[in-house]
């Protein structure tokens, strides 16, 4: 029977496919008992599932050797220890033997008993160890229900329905021809949503009823723009789907024509349009969309989902490929920016920091691991022999950090030249402005850098003290908060006064409805994921920069997000 469910659109696109439901870790089962003669079989079933879970964990652990993976691996070790916990196992066996409960229900009971104690703890850190228990219990539960053919089937034609999804999973799923993703939790601002948009994988998040109303094999129609999900669509839905598809195709054809058009406003001002790109296909897409270069290449892409840390040569080859791929246009390589929201949720997260968002991340991590930083900088300098390279340093807070990295860069360049290794002549050096302290003091360190990039995703998060992946804070995290707009304006003005090129590479730059705001505030360069480049160019070509600049004062006077929205609506309407 047809049923429409509402969620939040996180990655646009239409998809029509078959549901593949993945149940969450926390179990919501009703009581299930077994017959006396089934006890031995049930115990064997539990043992087999625990063994399978152990093998999965050690498999993950084995693929994770190397220095950077050490702390990640410790969490996997913790999960193995939980799995091997003698009390946990004895409790489960007792529930099956004495209580005659099914293995599934025993898992739930045992989990709930422990959860009650954890949830009563005052200490946040210890209370959240419940996540680790849930992760292990969820793994065992999944193993109890694994069919032999699971995982061997491709995902072609399927739409994944899950509680939540880790960023690292998305790329893999997309490679397996998955059509779209629906999650119960999550936010359109999460890192997973960003990745989904980069992959052109339609995604709906925050669909509260998805898991309770969708069954494996149901036909699903999903619209990633407005967050609509239709289970068992009827003839009317399918007709509307065909019309919408055709419209999308027409729009695409129309945008295709913009590939060779200049990114120029109606009043004749050229705007720089760069791409956020790492993968080979993204680089190719950026070039074919006529982007002016790569504004953000996230090197952590090379470090994730593998068993060791890429050495200098491997990094050099990857960076050189990107430089060659952009055919003479500049490529902005950002040094390692591992952070809490980039680690995935499948147990690999760097979670042993009390407050990861405020911890050892970005340049702080790089400066604490000089060998790693030196290898990155050398690889970048060597790639620069093949085309223009800009080195970008994330998460800076203080002038001293910028000086330290700049000194390493100069030292590495000198050393490479001494060794007669080809190095680019002009390697630009810049920083990522995403900590409010760095945003406010831009002119104090402008002399040390050749360019600046504004990472609005983190900047807004730190400025508003609102986690952008927090389900309940959707309304609070907003680039349209007046404080954000005023800070951006100040930075654009300071950069212009210092003669410093500045570009925005956060999500805001890729949102057609927000681009006019950025232009009004004084921005001249944007970096967006390649899939959004043509749409952003279309907006820029329709914009009158002189008029937007004249309306900037009114924008800066807005006191609430609603006033900003009205400013945007009026500006678009006129």
């Amino acid at each position, binding site marked *: 029977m047809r049923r429409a469910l509402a969620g939040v659109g996180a990655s646009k696109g239409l998809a029509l496919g078959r549901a593949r439901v993945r149940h969450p870790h926390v179990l919501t089962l009703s009581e299930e008992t077994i017959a006396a003669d089934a006890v031995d079989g049930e115990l064997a079933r539990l043992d087999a599932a625990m063994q399978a879970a152990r093998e999965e964990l050690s498999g993950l652990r084995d693929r994770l050797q190397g220095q950077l993976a050490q702390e990640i691996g410790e969490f996997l070790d913790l999960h193995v220890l939980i799995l091997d916990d003698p*009390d946990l196992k004895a409790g489960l066996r007792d529930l099956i033997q004495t209580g005659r409960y099914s293995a599934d229900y025993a898992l739930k009971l045992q989990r709930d008993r422990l959860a009650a104690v*954890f949830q009563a703890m005052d200490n946040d850190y210890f209370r959240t160890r419940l996540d680790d228990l849930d992760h292990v219990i969820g793994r065992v539960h999944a193993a109890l229900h694994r069919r032999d053919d699971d995982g061997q089937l491709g995902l072609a034609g399927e739409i994944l329905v899950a509680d939540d999804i880790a960023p690292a999973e998305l790329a893999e799923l997309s490679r397996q021809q998955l059509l779209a993703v629906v999650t119960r939790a999550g936010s359109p601002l999460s890192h997973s949503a960003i990745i989904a948009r980069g992959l052109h994988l339609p995604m709906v998040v925050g669909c509260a009823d998805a898991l309770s109303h969708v069954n494996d094999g149901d036909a699903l129609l999903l619209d990633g723009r407005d967050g609509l999900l239709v289970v068992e669509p009827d003839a009317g839905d399918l007709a509307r789907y065909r019309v919408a598809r055709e419209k999308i195709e027409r729009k695409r054809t129309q945008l295709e024509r913009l590939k060779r058009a200049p990114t120029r406003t109606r009043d004749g001002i050229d705007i720089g349009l760069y791409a956020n790109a790492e993968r080979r296909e993204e680089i190719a897409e950026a070039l074919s969309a006529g982007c002016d270069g790569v504004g953000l290449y996230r090197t952590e892409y090379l470090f994730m989902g593998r068993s060791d840390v890429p050495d200098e040569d491997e990094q050099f080859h990857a960076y050189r490929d990107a430089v060659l791929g952009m055919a003479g246009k500049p490529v902005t390589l950002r040094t390692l920016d591992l952070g809490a929201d980039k680690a995935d949720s499948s147990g690999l997260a760097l979670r*042993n920091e009390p407050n990861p968002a405020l911890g050892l991340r970005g340049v702080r991590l790089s400066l604490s691991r000089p060998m790693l930083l030196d290898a990155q900088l050398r690889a970048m300098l060597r790639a620069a022999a093949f085309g223009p390279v800009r080195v970008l340093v994330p998460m800076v807070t203080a002038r001293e950090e910028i000086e330290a990295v700049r000194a390493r860069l100069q030292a590495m360049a000198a050393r490479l030249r001494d060794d007669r290794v080809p190095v680019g002549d002009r390697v630009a050096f810049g920083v990522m402005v995403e900590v409010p302290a760095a945003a406010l003091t831009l002119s104090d360190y402008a002399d040390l850098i050749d360019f600046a990039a504004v990472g609005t995703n983190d900047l807004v998060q730190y400025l508003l003290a609102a986690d952008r992946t927090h389900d309940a804070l959707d309304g609070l995290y907003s680039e349209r908060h007046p404080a954000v707009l005023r800070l951006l304006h100040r930075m654009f003005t300071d950069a212009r006064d210092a003669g410093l090129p500045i570009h925005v590479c956060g999500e805001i730059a890729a949102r057609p409805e927000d681009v006019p705001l950025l232009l009004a505030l004084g921005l001249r360069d944007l970096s967006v994921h390649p899939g959004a480049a043509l749409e952003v160019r279309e907006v820029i070509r329709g914009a009158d920069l002189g008029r937007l600049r004249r309306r900037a004062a009114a924008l800066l006077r807005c006191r609430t997000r609603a006033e900003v929205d009205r400013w945007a609506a009026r500006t678009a309407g006129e």
Partner: protein
Amino acid sequence: MLERQIPVVNRLGLHARASAKLVQLLAGFKAQATLVGAGREVNAKSIMGVLLLAAGQGSSVTLRTDGPDEAEAMAAAEALFARRFDEES
């Protein structure tokens, strides 16, 4: 049976990594090991048990070992606490 009171001196207390080290260490001994703290008594060879103690820095726990190698188990555990679980520089 041996029983000692051990102060928790490392910065983060018996957090996950420290608890894991203690549990792994004690798993190598035959003696039974029990940890007592804040009115709760847990199996010191059970990771969930040790985490349930939620022993932060400055607290103190009582360790009981009982079995053929109880003295060695106690000495090894005390040394691990004293070394702050090998985690701080």
